[in-house]
């Protein structure tokens, strides 16, 4: 069986991307509060929704990244 080694740098990069996604979700929440004129306490009370939204964004981004990486590998193979 082949061992897959994920380097520490890769893990740190993925964590940073996930945190970035949660921050984007937080910004979306701020936009929603301003747009619908609701209360600022929702930043705390809807934190669970923000986190779930962040994870959804991360997964969606992951799919896009996978497609792009696949396309890049295919392109490199054709060129090579």
């Amino acid at each position: 069986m082949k061992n897959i080694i994920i380097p520490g740098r890769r893990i740190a990069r993925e964590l940073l991307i996930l945190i970035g996604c949660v921050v984007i979700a937080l910004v979306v929440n701020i936009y929603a509060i301003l747009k619908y004129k609701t209360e600022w306490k929702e930043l705390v009370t809807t934190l669970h929704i923000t986190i779930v939204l962040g994870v959804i964004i991360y997964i969606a981004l992951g799919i896009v990244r996978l497609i792009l990486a696949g396309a890049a590998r295919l392109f490199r193979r054709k060129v090579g």
Partner: protein
Amino acid sequence: MNPAATILRRASNGDMKHDSTPSPPVLNELTHRREFLKRLAVIAGSTALLAEMPWWSPLRAAPPGDSPADRVRVGLVGVGSRGNLHLTNLLRTPGVEIAALCDDYDPHLQAGLAKVPGAKGFSEYRKMLDMPGLDGVVIATPLNLHAQMCLDAFSAGKHVFCEKSLAYTIEECQAIANAYRGSKKVFQIGHQRLFHPPYLRALEFARRGEIGDIKQIRAYWHRNGNWRNPCPSPELEHRLNWRLYRAYSCGLMTELASHHIQVANWFLEAHPLSVVGYGSINFWKDGRELYDNVNLVYRYPNGVHVIFDSLISNRFYGAEVQIMGPKGTIEGETGRLFAEKPPPAPGIVQLINSLEHGLFETIPIGGPSWVPDLKKDTKGIVLGNEHTGDDGSYLEIVAFANAIRRNEPIPNMMEQACLSGVAVLMGQTAMEQGREVTWPSDFKV
């Protein structure tokens, strides 16, 4: 201020869970109850609470001690289904001694005496009233017997707890009210919703203007069953199934409607001006005389109507009292408030919903331009989270016992009894005579 809910939440603190265990009192349970009543007494002294619900005043009393002077000796007349519930609650009430039981149906009497071995048994209530040392009586008999028993009990100098509805005729209601006025004795009516936490909370919300001015009350009580008790022989039919026969009762009106009409009077702070209605026997055609379905409209001051219906051939909707105002609806039986304009969802939820609708919702072209007025599918707000396990039947007994011990009347109780008692009799007459029946102008509480 949140009088009722605060009281029950702070006072119960888990102790009242013992209510769900229908067992004879044990020392531990009575100790728990004393603790509960002690806390209740402290909080029930609040001025705000007593202004809104003066009949709670006996609950201010600290729980009794063990001295004989603190004991209240009561007799129970009628040990049938409701009587048995009172018996259980009396046994659970600290400082109450069930000195006597009375029932002219011996199997009921013997079953009651088996639960209270020290009590003296009677088959004739007048003999029970003559028993020395008896402080009060609890009357849980067929409706047609209430008036004479109340009058005799007052004459004998006893305090009276009478099951609802008050009496069989309006004249009898008046006679009881008159006798009470002259007696200076305690009177309690078996309208347990006056002591039921969800209703107390509902009243608080209504008074606070959460639903706006009450514009309509719709009440219904639906069951599916023949409403019969097991009858060992045909000659006992009328005695055991008295709720089905006109000589003893007004059936659905006095046994069920009286509760909801009492709530309506209470919330509207008024009595009905008139009533119209129809009733019939359309399902249980088994020899009964009283309607198995009733439909009535009560007219109250300021153009407010109370609509009540009851049937015993379909239980889908169960029982409910819907108190409606322009800003919301309160459902008393389930203790919920439904705002007409509920608070908006959080901004982020609205944004997600908006995106979802934009992406997936089809845009109707040339379709219907109206939305059907179907029931709003909202869960509403729960009115309080008091899990006392009591529908008010226990606290009304405690209030009765405390009032006897303090020898002070329960404020407003006869008024509540008369207003609902008369209103349901008006309803029965309206249905039987097929006419509008107005409030008897000469009736005085």
